[in-house]
């Protein structure tokens, strides 16, 4: 007896819709087993992960705060992936954006610079992220170098650059030798939406990005081009669409969004530049993009869900001493199930009995 894949005559629309839900269900089932192995009560753990964060206002705000960068980065990545360009260095573009934007904050610190500071930080961060993403894009288009490897190598480079700056030239002289810049001035800080709360302007910007992406993909020729180049490269060539141009474009947009997310994180929830400003947002956003089926609205939902796992993971750590790495395992397992369930859209499983097959061999 053997399990084989059989290509469906056409994509299964029903499965395309329910597959993320199946994936989430399977992941939760797997987590129950993992919790049991770790000797924790699975029901209490699931409650800490998925229910508790939804029950108080502070956690709800915190989920939105975590979801904002994830959604912004994932929207950019989804454009790349739709166009068959594999940007996996969003983490680096996020860090470079944070660094570039912080430059203005650091330079204007303690001066009477006005309200232009924050917008300028945003613009510079987005530009830096875009330029940083253009390095792998140009290496791919001009020289054929794998954008997967080059974009990833640049993550480590960005990480080291940030480390150098906050330990060296930008270190806060009053910071007791900690590797961090001084706290940003109020004019260089992202405004809060709720007085005394955590929710900040970044959440609104993330929603605007989602709306813009939905319009781009659904209503414009450029969006159509992106989807055709990714789904049917040959057809795109006959249509006169240039795949190379789209690699450059989608990488630049993706890098700009990641860079913007970077400065919003630093000038918002963190408040200063230091190592470890990202709990792997750039990599988690890859999961968000796939879980959201590379669709803007789907990504919004997926981003909120993964933000929930971050917050839930922290709560489970505090309440039940469940290691924080469980959250990363959870996210990895989720991505596997999402990809596996997607396989069902194109294929169906069938059990084959080898002896029967011999009998049908002459067919």
């Amino acid at each position: 007896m053997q399990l084989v894949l059989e290509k469906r005559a056409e994509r299964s629309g029903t499965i395309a819709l329910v597959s993320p839900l199946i994936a989430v269900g399977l992941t939760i089932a797997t987590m129950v087993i993992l919790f049991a192995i770790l000797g924790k009560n699975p029901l209490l753990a699931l409650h800490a992960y998925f229910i508790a964060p939804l029950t108080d206002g502070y956690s709800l705000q915190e989920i939105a705060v975590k979801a904002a960068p994830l959604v912004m980065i994932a929207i950019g990545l989804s454009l790349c992936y739709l166009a068959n360009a594999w940007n996996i260095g969003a983490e680096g573009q996020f860090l470079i954006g944070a660094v570039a934007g912080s430059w203005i904050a650091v330079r204007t610190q303690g001066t009477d610079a006005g309200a232009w500071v924050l917008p300028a930080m945003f613009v510079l961060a987005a530009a830096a992220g875009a330029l940083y993403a253009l390095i792998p894009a140009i290496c791919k288009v001009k020289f054929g170098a794998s954008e997967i490897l080059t974009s990833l190598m640049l993550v480590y480079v960005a990480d080291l650059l940030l480390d150098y700056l906050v330990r060296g030239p930008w270190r806060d002289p009053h910071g007791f030798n900690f590797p961090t810049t001084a706290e940003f001035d109020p004019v260089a800080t992202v405004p809060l939406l709720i007085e005394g709360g955590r929710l900040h302007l970044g959440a609104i910007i993330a929603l605007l990005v989602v709306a813009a992406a939905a319009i781009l993909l659904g209503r414009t020729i450029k969006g159509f081009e992106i989807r055709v180049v990714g789904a049917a490269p040959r057809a795109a060539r006959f249509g006169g669409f240039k795949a190379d141009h789209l690699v450059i474009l989608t990488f630049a947009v993706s890098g700009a969004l990641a860079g913007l997310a970077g400065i919003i994180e630093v000038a918002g929830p963190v408040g200063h530049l230091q190592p470890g400003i990202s709990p792997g947002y750039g990599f988690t956003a890859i999961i968000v993009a796939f879980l959201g089926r590379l669709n803007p609205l789907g990504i919004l939902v997926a981003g909120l869900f993964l933000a929930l796992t971050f917050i839930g993971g922290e709560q489970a750590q505090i309440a039940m001493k469940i290691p924080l790495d469980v959250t990363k395992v959870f996210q990895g397992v989720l991505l596997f199930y999402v990809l596996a369930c997607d396989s069902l859209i194109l294929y169906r499983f069938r059990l084959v009995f080898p002896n029967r097959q011999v009998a049908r061999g002459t067919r």
Partner: protein
Amino acid sequence: MELVEAIVLSVLAASTPLLIAATGELVTERSGVLNLGVEGMMIVGAACGFAGAWLTGSIFMGALFGILAGTMMSLIFALMALGLAVNQVATGLALTILGVGLSGLVGAGFVGERITPAVHLSIPGLTDIPLVGRVLFGENAFVYVSIALVVAVWWFLYRTRAGLILRACGDNHVSAHALGYPVLRIRTFAVMFGGACAGLAGAYLPLAYTPFFIPGMTAGRGWIALALVVFSSWRPGRLVVGAYLFGAVTILQLHAQGWGVGIPSQFMSALPYLATIVVLVLLSRARSGGSTAPAALGTVFVPDR
């Protein structure tokens, strides 16, 4: 001269994990499968290798644990990418994300622990030969295994029938299938071999390179191993050259500080990653006439019966 010897020794030590992981990935890619999860398999190998050595008190058992862990990880990849025909790039990324989490979970209990690292070979007489003695006859077992491994892989790929069939699967799976070869089974074995090597390469880090485990200790070596396979044009001989070159770049940054070069350490640490990008660009450019990659690399194969 002692400085030269020290440099050669440390270059060998830094190159060995790259060589082992890249050799495994080379076999995987030669069968037509692109497994981007090397970093994930390595990091799980590092955690399990250290756990194994700490629990059993034996470096050999640690290495075995690392190999097993890498192989198990690669089986997940095989199930997804070969069994379910899922996009190999996405599956490889998922494997790395999962691996980082698993490694943290397994390794958390071992941070701060120390073990006695792998012993260095010492043959009285031979090891004492000036200049070459320590370099040739004074390494730890991992170094010799890495060289034996790459020689064995060369011999397998170019001198055996099985190697020919494996390469055929990587170049044209449709023809290999038509000739009656079980393409998916062969690829599964190739993926498992790659996983075993990545696991061993990961285990090398806490067992021989440093005597302790820290989270994220692979530091992108899995990705550099992937780049090395491209650098080598999928050939074992060039892989050795590439791995030692990269090891040398890695060591350069350590020694540069010792020599008092006035460059911030972070810039020197960025060298291996920047070198990888430069190498990828130069090689891909030189090859613009035609790719030397296995023709079916990364493509999905679902046999029709």
